[in-house]
């Protein structure tokens, strides 16, 4: 998986994420260029977003693993209006839910392509932007 790019990559919207002890491993992983998901050792369900315990069987036996980073677009929209300064400069941009190989979907942006070329079912792979604090934010690019 690629190491995160610098924030000054034309993506001012990727501010340092607010982390807590349940989600920290995910954001630290993103800082290392890894997409980190949780799996329950007891019931084997892969869950996202992260919790301190398994919400399928309530077990504490959560383990973190590095996911493949591959998935496909489940749905998306091209945002053309957003007054927030952080996002205004990035318009138009694509928000999407990506269905990961491992099962869960996650909300993200699809970047490095013409927004009009995005389609449901399109294969994508994860890419990271680094933020301060050694953390990162994942987004996806055409595979």
């Amino acid at each position, binding site marked *: 998986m690629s190491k995160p790019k610098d924030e000054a990559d034309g993506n001012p919207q990727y501010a340092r994420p607010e982390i807590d002890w349940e989600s920290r*491993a995910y954001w630290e992983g993103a800082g290392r260029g890894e997409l980190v998901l949780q799996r329950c050792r007891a019931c084997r369900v892969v869950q996202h977003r992260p919790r301190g315990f398994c919400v399928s069987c309530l077990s504490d036996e959560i383990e*973190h693993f590095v996911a493949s980073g591959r998935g496909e677009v489940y749905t998306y929209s091209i945002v053309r209006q957003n007054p927030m300064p952080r996002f205004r400069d990035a318009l138009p941009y694509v928000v999407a839910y990506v269905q990961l190989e491992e099962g869960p979907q996650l909300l993200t942006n699809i970047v490095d392509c013409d927004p009009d070329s995005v389609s449901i079912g399109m294969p994508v792979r994860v890419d990271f932007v680094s933020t301060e604090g050694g953390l990162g934010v994942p987004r996806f690019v055409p595979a």
Partner: protein
Amino acid sequence: MPEKYVHRKGIPLLVRHTGETTLPQNPPQSGAGPTILCLHDAGLQSSVFSDLLDAFGPPASGLSFDLPGHGRSGSLDAVSSIEEMAEVAVWIADWCQLERPILVGHGMGALVALEWAHTKPESLGGLVLCGAGLAMGITQETIESLRQVTFGKAPRPFDPSRVARDSGPELMKRAYREGIQTDPRATLVDLVASRRWSDGFVRGDRPPSIDCPTRIVCGAGEATACLERAEKLASALPRATLSIVEGAAHFLPFEKPAALASEIRKIAEAV
């Protein structure tokens, strides 16, 4: 600086470390160079060492942790003796897969380091003991007035002389902040444990047979009695040398982190 929780006997222990983050179930990555493990003082916590760890950069690596009941570790009364604290430290080093770390002990942390050196000398790379000495100068009066604090009958005391005179408001604020992050009940347990252990050391229960490179470091701004205790400690340990750092007092680890880091490097070279 990366932080993670490791769980020992159901108690979450906060560990800070240099280098990259790792998955929660994995230890920090070890560097190619020497590793230091910092042991905090009574009533304090690992945040005291954040500047020192920053100054002790790659290829070396460093860790510090909060003892149970201190800082952001869990529990309150899990450890009540220097011996138990040393067991926790050994366990952390083991979990983090540290190879013969150099222990940096501050105040009570120095006693923990000495206890470790006595029980498992082969697992150590060296000792750097700062703001410490034999007998520790803990009086019954100190203990009683702290007990009053834990009963809510007195406010927690702040001793500005723990940083060097003319230190300026930033260091003073830092000293104050570091002093309020641990429950005073833990401080009380720490002082009682420290006194008991160092009485034993002086009596000869813990023969001064510690045989690894040792540096006693003391801030020049510490009280004369502290400087004397540091000298006595240096002469009690076979391979110990004493060094005084100007412009710092008891909070040497964040008053003069670069100076302390270079003392540590000298020990690392001697190993």
